Each structure stands twice: as C-alpha cells, then as structure tokens.
C-alpha cells in the first residue's frame, strides 16, 4: 500500500475494516485460536484418560488384602505390602541424606560463596546434573555404593542414589526461597552484631523454611516415583518381606518396582488389575504429597 496522506491511509484502514478481507481474516483468527486451545487440551485429555483408566481398572482390585499382602504368583492374592514399606523406608532415608546436604549447599551458594571460579563451577554443575537421565544415576549408585563401598544391593545404596538424584532439585528450590528473603533482614542482623553465620542460622534460613520444605517435598515425591535408578541399583522385583528405615543393608523393593513387575507379567490379571491398583495407590500418595507442599507454600510462605 502506497499511502501518501493521513486521510488516504484512514480511508484505506476503514476499507479494510469494512471489506470482505476482514471476514476471512477473523475466521482465520478464530480457527487458529481454536487449534491452539485444542492442542493444549490434548495432553490434558490424555492425563484425564490415564486417570480414568487407573480408576476403572484399579478400584475394583484395591482392598485391604491387596495393601497387606506380599507378592504372590496368583494375581488374585498378590499385594503391595513390600512395596509400600520399601518406598516409605527409601523416602525416610533419602530425605535424611538429601535435605541437610541440599539446604547446606543452598545456604553456602546463596549466602556465603565468594564469586570465584569454584562457585561458578558449582552453579553450572547443578544445572547440568538436572539434565542427567535418572538411569545414569542408577549406574553411579551400582558402581560406587553397591560395589565400591560394598553396600550390596541394599536399601541404603538405593536411598543414597535417590538422594544424589534429587539433590540438585532441593538446592535450586532452597536457593530460590533464600533469595526471596529481603536483604534488609540480613543487614539488620549484622547491624545488631550478629555474625554472618548467626544471621543465616537464626534469620535467613528460618524465614525461608516453608519454601525449602515445599521444594523438598516435591523433590521427594519425584524420588518416590522413580523406578529406573533403584532398579539398576538392584531393587528386588518380587520381595516377600518388609523394609524398615533402619534395616540399612537389607535387600529392598519399592512401589514403582512392584508396578513394573506387575506390568511386565504376561497375565492380564497382573497387568490390568494388580498394576492399576498399585498405580492408584502410588498416584494417591504423590497427590497427597503435592497437596501438602502446596498448602505449606500457601499458608506459611511469607510474602515480603
């Protein structure tokens, strides 16, 4: 359009607005918007289908017997007791290792680390670790914990592997939470004569704690659903006794491991009934953990 005067350009604009060109344009607009919404809905719909399928297949099989039985060769008598105790024990031990390490590393990086090469290396490294496939952590755990440190295919080897896996997640979440604490709080503490460490221990970290807990719970919920790393470390597919957190060197299993075991069996009763019921339990646990994390964040997190 070669427009020379304001008046002509206004006329041209009016013509475009009124003309047939605009009808085609708005239809194209609407089609495009609907396409985008449709594409966004697809993945949400698949999630809905998945949940419906779990409920449909799983609810019928889920009962007290299923929750309290050890695995059996017969699908009707099998259960996930070993998986539940195993996952709980793994979670307790993983948290006991990953939480203090992750928070300490975050406090160091956020509050004390000098801006030098070591610090930059640490930061780049945390970002890179987040992209390492979880099965590779399993290889690390197998070579280092199981064989080099001679822990065997034990609960503690599995928990340490999971702890390393979620450490970067906890560090990133804790740093964000620490960063949200205003500088004024630190300055006030220092001005009153507290040492930097005292400021961190008594002011900064306690203020950031709700956010740190939220991040840790979310990280733990990821650990609970992980299958590949503990499978590589040597979790038992079909274990007929309980795990306890203090039985460090016991053989172990977990709920995802039992799901994998059920799914890989040829009989439909295992694939559909038992697997779905176990998945229903796992998803419920994860949903609960996520809800707790969100409540924690909304109720206790301070807005500055």
């Amino acid at each position: 359009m070669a427009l020379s005067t304001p008046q002509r350009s206004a006329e041209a604009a009016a013509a475009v607005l009124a003309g047939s060109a605009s009808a085609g344009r708005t239809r194209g607009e609407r089609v495009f918007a609907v396409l985008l919404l449709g594409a966004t809905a697809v993945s949400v719909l698949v999630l809905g289908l998945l949940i419906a399928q779990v409920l449909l297949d799983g609810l019928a099989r889920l009962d007290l017997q299923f929750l309290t039985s050890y695995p059996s060769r017969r699908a009707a008598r099998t259960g996930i007791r070993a998986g539940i105790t195993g996952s709980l024990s793994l979670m307790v031990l993983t948290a006991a290792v990953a939480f203090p390490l992750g928070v300490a590393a975050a406090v160091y990086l956020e509050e004390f680390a000098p801006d030098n090469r070591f610090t930059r290396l640490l930061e780049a490294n945390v970002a890179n670790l987040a992209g390492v496939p979880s099965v590779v952590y399993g290889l690390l755990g197998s070579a280092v914990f199981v064989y080099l440190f001679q822990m065997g295919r034990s609960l503690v080897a599995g928990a340490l592997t999971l702890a390393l896996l979620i450490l970067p997640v906890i560090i990133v979440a804790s740093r964000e939470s620490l960063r949200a604490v205003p500088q004024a709080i630190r300055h006030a503490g220092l001005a009153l004569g507290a040492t930097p460490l005292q400021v961190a221990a008594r002011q900064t970290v306690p203020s950031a704690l709700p956010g740190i807990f939220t991040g840790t719970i979310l990280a733990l919920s990821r650990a609970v659903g992980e299958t590949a790393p503990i499978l590589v470390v040597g979790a038992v597919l079909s274990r007929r006794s309980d795990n306890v957190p203090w039985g460090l060197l016991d053989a172990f299993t977990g709920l995802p491991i039992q799901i994998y075991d059920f799914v890989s069996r040829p009989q439909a009763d295992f694939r559909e009934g038992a697997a779905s019921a176990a998945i229903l339990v796992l998803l419920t646990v994860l949903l609960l953990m996520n809800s707790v994390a969100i409540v924690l964040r909304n109720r206790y997190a301070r807005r500055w």
Partner: protein
Amino acid sequence: MSEHPVIGAPVLVGDPGDRPPMSLGGRPRRGEQLAMALLALAGAVTVLTTVGIVAVLFFDAASFFREPVVSLWAFVTGTEWRPFGNPESDAFRIGVLPLLNGTLLVTGIAMLIAIPLGLASAMYLSEYAPRRVRAVLKPALELLAGVPTVVLGWFAVDFMTPVLRGAFGDERVAIFNAASAGIVMGIMIVPTIASLSEDAMSAVPSGLREAAYGLGSTRRRVVLSVVFPAALSGVVAAIILGIGRAIGETMIVAIAAGGMPQMTANPFEQVQTMTAYIVQAVRGEAGPGSLTYESIFAVGALLFLMTFALNLAAQRFVRRYREAY
C-alpha cells in the same frame, strides 16, 4: 579464596546491584570457620556426583573395550546387538547401532507429538488463555509432568497399544512397538516444552506486541511473526531439553517398546533403546568383571555423552535469549 583475609566475611553473590559485599573485617570464631567449611563441603557433593558419574562410566566402559572379544570399532559400526551370547561364537555381537536406532526412532516419534503440542500450548498459554482457563490448564500440565514414568509405561501397553492395534490392525502392529512408547513419551514431554517455551514467549517485551498491533496486525500475526521469532532461541532450548529427556527416558520404553534390538524404521515393530537395554541387563545377576555388566556402562557412557551435549547446547540457547532483552 586466598584474597579474602577471612573465610567468614565473604561477599554475597546474587544480584550485584542490591547486594553490597558484607565485609565486616572481624575474624570469625573457629567454630564458624568450621561450619562454613561444612556448608561448602555440602556444595562440593554435587561436584563429586558429576565427577563420580563421569569416572564410573568411563572407567567401566574402558574395561569393556579392553576385553579381547570387544572392539570400539565394532561397537560404533556394528548393526547387531547380541551381548548375551557366548563371546567366542557368532551369537555374540556388540554393535550399538540397533540400540541407537531404537532410541532415535522412539525419540523421533515422541518429538513429532511433543513439538507441535508443546509449542501450541505455549502460544495459547502465553498469548491467548483467559486467566480462568490458564488457572486450570497450567496445574493440569504440571500434574502431567509429575506422573511417574512407570505409570506412563503401563498406560502405553494397557491403553495406547490396544488403540493402535485397533486402528491399524493386529497383524501390522506388534504387541510391543516403538509407536506406542513414542506417543506416550511425547505426551510426557509436552509440559517440559510448553513451560520453557511459554517462559521465553512471556519474556518478549510487550512493546514489540503493541508495535505490531499498532501496525494493524491480527493476534495470529503477532504471535507467529513477532512473539515466536523473538522467543525462538528459548523455544529451541526447550525443544533440545525435550529431546534430551526423550533419549534418557527409561521406563516407558522398557515396558512398552519391547526388548528386541533391531535396525528398523517401522514404528509398529518392537525395538530396544539404550536405556531399555540397561534395564534388561541389570535384571540378571551380572556383577563387576562380567561382560554384561561392563556393557551396561559402555551404553550408559554413550547415553550420557548424548544428553550432556544436548544440555550444553540448550544452555547456550537459553543464555542467548536471556541476553536479548
């Protein structure tokens, strides 16, 4: 560190603008020095993890390639993967290409699903969604991202495979096949691509949009010709990270894609990926020193190299879009 007179009075990192150095000059108590060292040690654990991963993978992979029956050349060029056979016989072949083929086939299918769906979701959430719709869709996508992969694997065999067999015929679609695993994996990766791309699109200054609207552009033109190109490096980073996740994903393929390594481009046949081989091999009792155990690490090293390269590439793109505005 040596330039600082004391460890306990360091410089706070973060935004240099609002964080002046907290140098108090005083000498920290000995207990404080110790505490500070412990904190730094915790940070060092993450570095040890990386060092450990690299050392373990390459040490064990190296001992694999030192085995007399194994050669690096055969590994990277061989088109048959039969690592469980008698090493002295023809039943033993260690060409990694069939596993690589399986990984790339499933990843390709996954990206065919994840890229269009992920980018459309990002565009919709960033430019179109009314607040109320967004408040439903965002958490739903986050929920999807939190579903354990073993559950997605079950969904692939229990739901997707029957659907595919119904649509294309039982005789064409194998019970375990690359398509079913790839499609479900693609859905799994949608939240990754959507959320990172949306971040990149939201970071495009609104001045660019307003200028385009001022010139008479429709919303579609603004999205496709202004926002999308401006966010491109962030979008590319999101896609690269998505590819990395697809390559490293284990349980979906271990459950749904089958266990037969082969050179095929047919999505309805069964394949074995690198990750699925690792799972298959560890289900045996193989320990250190055995050929099988070492082969896991050779495959793992290749897997790590691929995802590491993708990560570095993604970070480069992310840095570029952060610097742009």
